[in-house]
């Protein structure tokens, strides 16, 4: 018996009968409703293909002292695999992991974004057609949403948020370290420094604007007047949360561009110009 039995008013029979009106067509929409899910699908596929390719490369992810730089790709940071190149890793290494280190570390951002409330909307619409657009019949005969396995796992989003924050701290350290110019005279700023800093800032904005963050910081509180600090945090996060979709796309794009930039510099295709 549900524990709600005590507080629930006596149920009134629900009358579900009755024929629906309107024509039996998939949709009566005439606007270009297919465009948005198609763009989302294409962009996400493009990112997945690039990220998968980059993760399996296991090379050209670090620009080190030989180039007078300290730049590491966000796909490979923190570098914890046995195959990490010298200079790219700290003291902690998973010596038993001999494959690409990106395959370990990417689990965190992948889990964070897959369970993200915004991306759920994006891929439920564009890949799962559930529904493809508002007012368009969804593509499934039966629908149970996120009530059963495997989609009930989406409820662990807050744990990935915490792991994502830890990863952001590592990427912020990488951005700070990118100000070092080893062997070329101490501290400076290059284009790579700016790219890594911008990447870290965007990832922080994306993480802080997350719905789970909003809930954990203050959303769970019922009496704001008794929790002024939590209310203050909630008020800061709420406008950012309204931009979560935009931050999701910008940060996703920039993390790939950051990897691409580091990869091009590391492979010698371009040089990282020093600004000052």
């Amino acid at each position, binding site marked *: 018996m549900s524990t709600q039995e*005590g*507080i629930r008013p006596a149920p009134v029979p*629900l009358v579900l009968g009755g024929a*629906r009106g309107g024509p039996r067509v998939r949709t009566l929409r005439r606007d270009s409703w297919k465009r948005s899910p198609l763009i989302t699908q294409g962009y996400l596929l493009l990112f997945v293909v690039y990220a998968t390719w980059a993760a399996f490369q296991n090379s050209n992810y670090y620009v080190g002292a030989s180039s007078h730089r300290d730049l590491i790709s966000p796909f490979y940071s923190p570098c914890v695999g046995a195959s990490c190149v010298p200079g790219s890793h700290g003291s902690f290494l998973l010596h038993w992991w001999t494959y690409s280190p990106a395959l370990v570390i990417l689990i965190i951002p992948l889990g964070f974004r897959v369970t993200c409330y915004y991306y759920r*909307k994006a891929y439920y619409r564009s890949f799962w057609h559930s529904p493809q657009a*508002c007012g368009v019949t969804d593509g499934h005969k039966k629908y149970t949403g996120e009530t059963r396995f495997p989609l009930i796992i989406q409820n662990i989003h807050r744990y990935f948020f915490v792991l994502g924050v830890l990863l952001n701290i590592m990427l912020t350290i990488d951005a700070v370290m990118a100000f070092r110019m080893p062997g070329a005279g101490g501290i400076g700023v290059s284009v790579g420094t700016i790219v890594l800093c911008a990447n870290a800032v965007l990832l922080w904005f994306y993480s802080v604007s997350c719905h789970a963050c909003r809930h954990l910081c203050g959303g769970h509180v*019922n009496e704001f007047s008794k929790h002024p600090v939590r209310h203050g945090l909630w008020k800061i996060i709420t406008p950012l949360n309204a931009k979560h979709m935009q931050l999701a796309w910008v940060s996703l794009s920039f993390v790939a561009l950051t990897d691409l930039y580091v990869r091009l510099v590391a492979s010698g295709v371009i040089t990282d110009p020093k600004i000052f």
Partner: protein
Amino acid sequence: MAEVVMRIWRGDSEGGEFQDFPTQVSEGEVVLDVVHRIQAEDAPDLACRWNCKAGKCGSCSAEINGLPHLMCMTRMDTLPTEEPVVIAPMKTFPIIRDLVTDVSFNYEMARRLPPFAPKEPGPDGTYRMQQIDVERGQEFRKCIECFMCQDICHVIRDHEENKEHYAGPRLFIRYMELESHPLDTNDRRELLREEMGLGYCNITKCCTEVCPEHIKITDNAIIPLKERVVDASYDPVAWLGRKILRRTKKTATEAANYRTDPKTVKASQ
């Protein structure tokens, strides 16, 4: 004046079809004006529900070119007129006639909602709330019950069988208003998870897109409710924190008992 064809669904529970009504549209007219003119001139038996004609009563909801709108707030000059303007009844609810549907599903789901159960008043016998606590629920009170969010929600729009166990976006904002109310003692989280189908919502935000009051239904009600359900049912760390710090609302049963016999609950704690 512009010439436009209004393609309106005519029929009842036995069946129906679209009927075209060529008509003239004047500057500034809304869809409801044109429907009323058709009623007056061409089809006096055309059924349509309306009341305030000001976007506040929520009566004239219908699907215009495939998406739910308030007919009284949809200006004709915002619609493409080179093709017929298609007006159909809300798809999710049983049809009564023409554009009128039976929305009693929503009222039944409202009856199933455990009501506001205030805690004990202060020593002076009154309740006090600070302005910042009052403000949070104001957004949800803007709801005019047009039920367009319920209509567009694919959980029940495309799956009739889910109506038995899905309250829908309109009711979720009411749940959130009560769940976040500082004076309320009821805990509806388990009910939301087990019987009101919160987990059926997959955050596609159609309810937010169609809301004429621009209530952020998904971001400010459904997702916060989902997070509260995670607190209650899926997060072992939150559970442990509650046990250690003893900081939680009463469980649903405790709250119910408390209202009937406060001493019993106090004695059992």
